[in-house]
């Protein structure tokens, strides 16, 4: 089942305590923050445990049963009760806030991240780089760049977990979720599936190869590409006949897709939604779910006609039609939508 090679590969990973490590490698910006919280929690626990266990031990020895000594009946103390409810609560709230801040950081990818589409399936990881490189069970990323993963699953729930980055995100079928990281240290790190997903759950391993920017450029240049993801999406778009209705210079029967991504869309029933990746996805797979105001529901359902990777290409294409935010690692090769040359006749 191709497992042994995976294990073999993992053996090659470089680690400080190759045989008996006690601390995971820190290889992302979040890892340091998280380890700090961990150290704080460990010290806190150590102090608490020492305090409680010492007290119990001291009591156990000092008040052990002896002849001629009776227990002293004490009913309780309101002050103590309040103290040991309120003080822990205060400490708990500090931990909550600290954890929440890190979580907020983890859940909000920086605006100009490189976007890598990831499809999980039983039992492998498939990656699509914006520049068109595709990888299986291996992801090459440069040091120091924000990488946003747009993840979806083809079958069951998986979970994208890179311990060295301290990130984990369940990958759900039928919708996109995101995760992000900025690698800080070149090296090869484990990628685990952390949500049980069937027979070869423990074989659903990959590795993240973090490279110096120059090495990364070399890697980009030498690895096979199929044209940029958005360009692939464009040809999908045309093959599926989408331009028939979604026109660019004139209004077609469907809404124009220029500048749709990331902006609010007014729906038929008056609601407004932000056109994010999930909205685009839903609009392709089940167009009737959210009809744009002023349009009829005439688009065919593409559920089952495009697979996850094609879907990703289409999303990447539609996203490329919006003016990319400043500094984005967008796709310079893409033809600006206004100048689309050809439209197949109706």
């Amino acid at each position: 089942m191709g497992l042994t090679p995976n294990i073999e590969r993992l053996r090659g990973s470089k680690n400080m305590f190759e045989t008996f490590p006690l601390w995971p490698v820190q290889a992302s910006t979040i890892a340091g923050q998280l380890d700090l919280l961990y150290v704080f929690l460990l010290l806190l626990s150590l102090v608490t445990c020492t305090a409680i266990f010492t007290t119990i031990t001291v009591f156990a020895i000092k008040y052990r049963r002896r002849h001629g000594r009776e227990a002293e009946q004490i009913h309780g103390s309101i002050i103590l009760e309040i103290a040991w409810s309120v003080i822990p609560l205060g400490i708990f709230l500090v931990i909550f806030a600290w954890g929440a801040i890190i979580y907020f950081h983890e859940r909000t990818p920086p605006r100009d991240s490189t976007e890598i589409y990831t499809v999980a399936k039983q039992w492998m990881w498939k990656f699509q780089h914006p520049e068109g490189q595709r990888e299986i069970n291996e992801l090459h990323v440069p040091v120091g760049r924000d990488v946003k993963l747009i993840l979806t699953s083809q079958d069951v729930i998986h979970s994208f977990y890179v311990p060295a980055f301290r990130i984990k995100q369940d990958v759900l079928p039928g919708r996109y979720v995101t995760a992000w990281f900025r690698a800080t240290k070149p090296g090869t790190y484990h990628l685990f599936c952390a949500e049980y997903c069937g027979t070869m759950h423990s074989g659903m391993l990959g590795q993240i190869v973090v490279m110096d920017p120059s090495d990364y450029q070399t890697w980009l240049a030498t690895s096979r590409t199929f044209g940029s993801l958005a360009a692939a999406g464009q040809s999908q778009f045309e093959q599926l006949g989408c331009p028939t209705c979604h026109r660019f210079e004139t209004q077609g029967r469907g809404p124009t897709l220029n500048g749709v991504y990331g902006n609010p869309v007014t729906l038929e029933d008056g609601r407004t939604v932000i056109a994010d990746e999930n909205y685009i996805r839903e609009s392709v797979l089940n167009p009737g779910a959210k009809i744009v105001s002023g349009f009829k529901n005439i688009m065919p359902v593409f559920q089952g006609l495009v697979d996850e990777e094609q879907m990703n290409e289409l999303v990447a294409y539609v996203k490329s039609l919006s003016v990319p935010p400043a500094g984005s690692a967008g796709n310079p090769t893409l033809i600006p939508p206004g100048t689309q040359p050809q439209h197949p006749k109706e």
Partner: protein
Amino acid sequence: MSDSLIALEHPTELQHHFADMEQQKSTSTFGMWLFLGTEIMFFGGMFAAYLIYRRWYYNEFALGSRSINIWLGTINTMVLICSSLTVALGVRAAQMGKRKLLVTLLLITMVFGVAFLGIKGVEWYQKYEEHHVPGSSFNASDLVSVGQKYGVHINQAHSQIYFSLYFALTGLHALHMVVGLGIFTVLTYFAWKGKYTPEYHTPIEIGGLYWHFVDIVWIYLFPLLYLIDRKPFH
């Protein structure tokens, strides 16, 4: 201590571990109320699913709701309310020790219960004929075309979710009715035997509580499943 001795000291209905009839009665009634509390949570899980999907797939839920027979639903609601009345009157008859009246009212209640299930069966059969029963033969293309008429898009898979919840909720409710009928058969038998007196009729009371509860569940199922969107489309 021999059992016969206890029996001499105690009323026959009093179980050995209770001090008196009062304690026995309040215990049983409280037990039934607690059980009804758990029943609320039992239906609650499905209500949660219902609320979420109704919000997501409003059109499918609306058209699904239109496709079930509101007349049968309304009549059934009335049938259940009538049965609740007869149960309430039955408990009253038991309180007053009117044995014949009690038996009659219990029997009428059961007739209403059976009628409810019969009407429910007709309704389900209609759904079966329309291929609206979830599963491999599910087909909501009729709803899709109705939707087209009103300019509403219907996703058949989402319609199936509506009908799944419809059948799960009404099916579970019907199951409770069947259990209720079973309980009432036993109650009627003992009532006929003259077991219940003004002093001892707790089983009638707690059986009644159960029946009313099943009625209340239906009182909510009726608007939630049948009345989502009956107003004319513009």
